[in-house]
C-alpha cells in the first residue's frame, strides 16, 4: 500500500484529516478489487465487545480472516472484566498473549481515548457509547462514493435518533471533511438544535429536510426511547418521521437510501423503501468488510511505522 498513514489506532473520524479518511476509502476500494490473503499473516485480532453486535463483529472477523490474521474471541461476560479487572489490565494481558489488534465496542463514550496510547497494539473503535463508530461511517461513505465519485456539493440527510447515535456523529465528521452538506432530521428530543454548533443543519420537518437530498441515512429508533420519554410511541414517531415512499420521493430521483441496521421495518423506514430501488442497505454491509480490512491493515502499518 502506498499512503501516508502513520496511526496505529482508529478511534474516531473527528480528529482525522480528509487525507486520512480518503486513504481508508482508497485502501478499501483496492481490497475490493484485489484480495490480499497474506497481508496480516501472523497478526492476532481480539474482539472486546461489551454490547451486542451481529453485523459489525462478523464483518470485522471476516475482514481479519480475509487478510490472513487470526481471531481471538472474547466476551465481557464471564471474563476477567466481569471479575473487576480494569479494561486496561485486560488489554495489557491480551497484548502479552500476542494480540496485535483490538476491536472494541463499549457502551461508554470516549472509553478508548485514554487506553489506546497505553498499548502497543492497534485499537479500532467498533462503537463507543453515543460517540463514534468510525468504520460504520466509512462503509456508508464508501457506498456513496462508489455511486457519486465525489462528495462535493452533495446533501446527505441523517434521519432519526441522532442524540444517541455514534453512527450519526461519525458520519457528520467525515462527510463534512469531504465536502458534503449534512442535515440532521428528527424530533427535537432526539435531534437537539444545539447540534448546529457542530456545523450541521438541524431540521425537524422531515419533508423539508428530504427535499432535494442526494441521500438519506435512516437510523434505528430504539424501543427504550419510548420508555425514556423521548417519543410518545413508536407509532407516533412513525407517523411523523418514517421514511415512506412518498417522503423518499421528495429527494432527487437518483437519491440513495442507507440504513446502518438493525432495521425496525414499519417504524423508522417503510419496507417498500428498504427493499426499493433506491436502497443500498446490503451494499453497505458488503462494503463493511472491505472498510474493516482497510482499517486493520492501515493501523497495522501505523503500528509498524510507530
Amino acid at each position: 500500500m502506498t499512503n501516508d498513514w502513520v496511526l496505529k489506532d482508529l478511534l474516531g473520524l473527528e480528529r482525522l484529516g480528509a487525507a486520512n479518511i480518503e486513504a481508508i476509502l482508497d485502501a478499501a476500494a483496492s481490497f475490493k478489487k484485489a484480495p490480499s490473503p497474506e497481508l496480516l499473516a501472523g497478526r492476532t485480532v481480539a474482539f472486546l465487545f461489551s454490547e451486542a453486535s451481529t453485523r459489525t463483529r462478523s464483518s470485522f472477523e471476516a475482514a481479519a480472516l480475509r487478510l490472513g490474521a487470526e481471531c481471538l474471541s472474547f466476551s465481557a461476560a464471564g471474563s476477567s472484566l466481569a471479575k473487576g479487572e480494569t479494561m486496561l489490565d485486560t488489554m495489557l494481558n491480551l497484548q502479552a498473549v500476542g494480540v496485535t489488534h483490538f476491536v472494541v465496542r463499549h457502551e461508554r463514550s470516549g472509553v478508548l481515548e485514554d487506553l489506546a496510547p497505553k498499548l502497543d497494539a492497534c485499537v479500532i473503535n467498533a462503537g463507543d457509547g453515543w460517540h463514534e463508530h468510525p468504520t460504520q461511517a466509512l462503509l456508508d461513505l464508501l457506498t456513496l462514493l462508489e455511486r457519486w465519485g465525489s462528495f462535493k456539493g452533495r446533501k446527505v440527510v441523517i434521519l432519526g435518533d441522532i442524540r444517541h447515535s455514534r453512527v450519526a456523529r461519525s458520519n457528520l465528521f467525515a462527510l463534512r471533511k469531504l465536502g458534503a452538506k449534512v442535515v440532521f432530521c428528527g424530533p427535537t428530543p432526539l435531534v437537539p438544535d444545539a447540534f448546529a454548533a457542530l456545523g450541521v443543519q438541524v431540521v425537524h420537518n422531515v419533508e423539508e429536510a428530504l427535499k432535494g437530498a442526494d441521500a438519506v441515512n435512516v437510523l434505528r429508533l430504539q424501543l427504550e426511547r419510548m420508555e425514556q420519554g423521548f417519543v410518545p410511541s413508536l407509532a407516533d414517531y412513525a407517523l411523523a418521521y418514517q421514511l415512506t415512499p412518498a417522503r423518499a420521493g421528495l429527494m432527487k430521483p437518483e437519491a440513495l437510501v442507507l440504513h446502518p441496521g438493525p432495521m425496525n421495518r414499519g417504524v423508522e423506514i417503510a419496507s417498500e423503501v428498504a427493499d426499493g430501488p433506491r436502497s443500498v442497505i446490503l451494499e453497505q454491509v458488503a462494503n463493511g468488510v472491505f472498510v474493516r480490512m482497510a482499517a486493520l491493515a492501515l493501523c497495522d502499518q501505523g503500528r509498524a511505522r510507530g
Partner: protein
Amino acid sequence: MAERILIVGGLVIDPARKLEAVRDVLIVDGEIREVAAGLSKKSALAGAETVDARGKWVIPGLVDMHVHLREPGREGDETIATGTAAAARGGVTTVLAMANTEPVTDNASQLAFLRAKAAQDAKVNVLFAGAVTVGQKGERLAEFAKLRAAGAAALSDDGRPVMNAGIFRRALESAKDLGLLVIDHCEDLNLSSGACAHEGAVALRKGLKGSPWAAETVQVARDIALVELTGARLHLAHLSCAASVEAVRQAKKRGLPVSAEACPHHFCLTDDMIPGYDADWKMNPPLRAKDDRAALIAGLADGTIDAIATDHAPHGCAAKSAGFDTAPFGVIGLETSLSAALTALYHTKALTKRQLVERMSSAPAALLGLKDKGTLAPGADADVAIVDPDASWTPEAPFLSKSRNTPFAGRRLKGRVLHTFVAGRPVVHAL
C-alpha cells in the same frame, strides 16, 4: 508568658472594617490584639516573634462553607486530618463539612463524634452540617433540634437535592425556628437524570449525556418561592448558570433572605475546556458555557453571589479513571481556591481585592454566624493568611489532600498563600 506574634508591614485587608492599609498585626494568645501602623517599633514588643509581610496581603483566614472531608466512610479519599491540612495550605482556616458521609451525618451522636474527632485531628476550624433528611433520602426530616444541640452549624442534604417541595418547606420552617441556616444543592433530578456533563454542543459532540442549566434554575426558582412562603433563610450552593444568578439577583432585590455561593472551577473554567474524557473535570453541577461563567463573575462582582466556596470533593484515582460518564462527580479545591480566584477575578479586575477577601472570608463567616472569624478586628480569633498576590505557580500532584482530582493541575495560577495562622498558631509557613 503570653505567646505573641507580630505580622509586620503587610497590606491588611479587612472588609468587615473597610480597612485596606499597611499595618502591623499583633496576635496575643490566639487572638488579634491590635492592628496599627508602627507596632514593630514599640519596645514593649521586642522579643515577639515577627513575620515579615512587606509587599504581601494580610487577610482574615478564608472560610469555606462547602467542603467534603469524607470522614466517616471514605477515609481512603480524604480524612479530617488531610482535608484540613489541604485547607491550611490554601489559606482556609474554617471549613463547613457536608453531611453526605457514609453513613450520613443525620443524627446528633455522629455529629458529636465528628466534632470530637476534629478537635483531635483538624489543622483548621471544622464546622459540621447536619443532614436535612434522614439518610439524605429526601423523605423524613432529620432531628434538627438535636443536631443543633450537638453543634451542627448548618443543615444540608448537599450532593442530593430534596426533591419533594412539601418536605423542603417543612425543613425551612423548622430550621427557621431553630435559627439554623439551610444550604440547598439545587438540581431537578428528572431533568438531570443520568447526565455527566453540561447539556450543549460539547456534550453532543463527545456523545455524553448532558444536564441542562434549567435543571439547576428550576430548583433555584422553587427554593426562592419557598423562602418567600416561609421567611426562612436559605443558602444556595454552587450556582453554575446565568439564569440561576439572575433568579437570585431578583430575589435579593425583593428583600428575600437568600444567599448564594460560587465555586472556583465554575467561574474559571467552561465545558469546552475539558480535555477529552478526563474525569478530573467532572463535577456536579457541571462546567457550563462561557455566558454562564461570565454571569457568575458578574454575580460575584455585584454581590448577588455572596461567597466563594470550593465544594472540595476528593475521589481516588481508581474511581476517577472509570470513564467520564461513570466516574463520580467532584473535584478538590482547597489548595487552589484563593489562587484560582485571584487569577480569574482579581488579576482580571473583575473584583477588587477587598471584594475578593469579602467573598472568601467575611461574607461566609457572617452567613454562618461566626462573629469572631472573617475579620482581623481586635478580639477576633487570630485566623490569618498572608498572601503573595503576584506569585505564579502551577499546582501539581501530590497534594496535601489525599486525592488529586482537580482540573487546576498543570494550570498556571497567579497568587499564592505563604503563611496560614489558626488561632495564632502558624499552620503553614512560606515554602
